[in-house]
């Protein structure tokens, strides 16, 4: 199993008001699943993504990621989990602007303390997987949006995480480039990775094999994507 969440809730304090973003979510995701989390804004999608990505802790409930309960961990332990078990792909790419492609991809391995020869080998492999070997020494500002997102994907891949978490990965791209990026995710899924897409776009969600819809902090539906199973 890739991860499991049990009765997860999240409440925020917004001034004097208490907002319940998640109101008790339970779900299991197996290895090599291709999951899309959908929902309108305010549905708790982002909160869900932050908790799954170990950027935030649930107010109550449990979160088992690769058989470890991460809901009780402290900040530094969470940082290590993010480093080892999770690969992020963000809507806004979130690359380091002053670092070149190679260094951006290498960075997670710097934080996991890998030797530089090993880092070089793995980073080059990941960059090759997304087809940017000839752009290795370029800065993000010298790349197109699609290329930047590929760099982000390479960075997400490089530590061989348990899940790849993509938050609106095509939100800042035109539809053709978006499709290109999605085909990379499809490919990664076929290669054995577990992928979680967070999106509000139907077209994008249709790439996933399982679609979870959130509404008002609860799971509204959790269905297999018939498109992939009809045949």
């Amino acid at each position, binding site marked *: 199993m890739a991860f499991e969440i049990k009765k997860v809730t999240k409440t925020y304090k917004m001034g004097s008001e208490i907002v319940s973003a998640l109101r008790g979510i339970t779900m299991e995701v197996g290895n090599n699943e291709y999951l899309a989390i959908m929902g309108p804004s305010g549905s708790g999608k982002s909160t869900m993504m932050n908790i799954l990505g170990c950027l935030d802790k649930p107010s109550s409930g449990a979160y088992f990621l690769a058989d470890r309960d991460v809901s009780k961990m402290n900040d*530094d332990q969470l940082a290590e989990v993010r480093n080892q078990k999770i690969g992020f792909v963000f809507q806004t790419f979130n690359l380091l602007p*002053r*670092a070149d492609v190679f260094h951006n991809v290498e960075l997670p391995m710097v*934080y996991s303390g890998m030797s530089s020869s090993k880092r070089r080998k793995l980073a080059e492999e990941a960059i090759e997987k997304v087809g940017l070997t000839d752009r290795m020494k370029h800065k993000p500002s010298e790349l197109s949006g699609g290329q930047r997102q590929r760099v982000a994907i390479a960075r997400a891949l490089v530590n061989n995480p348990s899940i790849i978490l993509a938050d609106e990965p095509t939100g800042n791209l035109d539809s053709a480039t978006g499709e290109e990026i999605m085909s990379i995710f499809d490919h990664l899924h076929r290669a054995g990775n577990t992928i979680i897409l967070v999106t509000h776009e139907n077209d994008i969600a249709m790439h996933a094999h399982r679609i979870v819809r959130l509404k008002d902090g609860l799971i509204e539906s959790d269905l297999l994507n018939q498109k992939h199973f009809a045949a």
Partner: protein
Amino acid sequence: MKSFHEILESFHIAYGAVRANKVRGMLTTLGIIIGIVAVVTTMTAANGLGNRFKESISVIGSDVLFVSRTPWIFTGNFFDFRNRENLTLKDSEKLEHQLPAARAIDPRSYTTQSIKYRSKQLENITIIGATNNYILVSNAAPEYGRFLISNDIQYKKNVCVIGAEIKEQLFKDVDPVNKKIKIGRHFFLVVGLMEKQGSASFFGGPNFDRQIVIPISSMMKCFGGTNRPFDIVVKAPSTEEMSDFEYALIGEMRKIRKLTPSERDNFSINKMDTLMNAYNNVMGVVVLIGLIITSISLFVGGIGVMNIMFVSVTERTREIGIRKAIGAKKKTILIQFLFESSSICLVGGLIGLLLAFGVTKLINAFLLPASISPTIVAVALSISILVGILSGVIPAYRASRLNPIEALRYE
């Protein structure tokens, strides 16, 4: 191993950050440079003063004791010293007899006179009445001619040995030996010329090149024999035995002065150490004050660095968010920013040191024998790094505590 990679990465980041904001980095560093130049120059100047002082008192010799009526440096009540009797030639003779361990004993007296050679006249020249032992207790030797001999003393001859500066001013290029000069109202034959002993005048101390030495017997004959200022200069057998020797000397002097055990010494023992200690006491305070004042400029520089680090943290909030999202721990972020601030300060310190080397060269050329010692280099660089860490710690702590979600959302 892990932290090594993080430190290497921190270095990478610091370098990139400073390079990305060259002008800002330069201006920030300038504050540190000025601070380090000020602090280092203060330290080297203090060292230079110390060197100059040691140089000037080294003429006295570290194994030489002066028995005098009063101490060189007054401590306590002046009236305790005022009524003391002068030392006499008799005291000196007795001491020579009772203290055979002394390598040499030279009774000395002083007067200030105007001197004249032909139409040239010099005012306020220190005349020293001494014996032939003078040459044994002082570190100087005649450059030309001869020094006083025991005959000169015994027969109260009107002969003199002149200092280098006197020769310069009175005789110019003329050979002074066997010329007669007028000291006060008396004629003296110049028999020798002392070698240059360096300008030893420091804090108004004696200038050994502007002195004339005559037989002490002649001095008493020509300038009066009673109630003269009088020292007995004693050379110890060795520097190592100084304190034992000093003790013996005091004992013999008390006998000579016929002091009962309950009476206090009515003479003083002066030596190079006395001056050295007095100097160290005074200069210690002066240097401390100097360092405090110059440290203020370094402090201001540090505030500049802190300011820029706050700006840097704010500017790079998003970067911090990214780094945290992909696994940087609090400590990693903290180290990254501390590294950046201390790099800025270390570079400032290095440039400051280079400039201080230049300033020291100038001081050396025109004022004092100053030099930058390895200790000063080490202290300056440690201070720079310390300032960097101190001024970086609050901004870095703030950066390390940023919430990754909010940091990622920051525009």
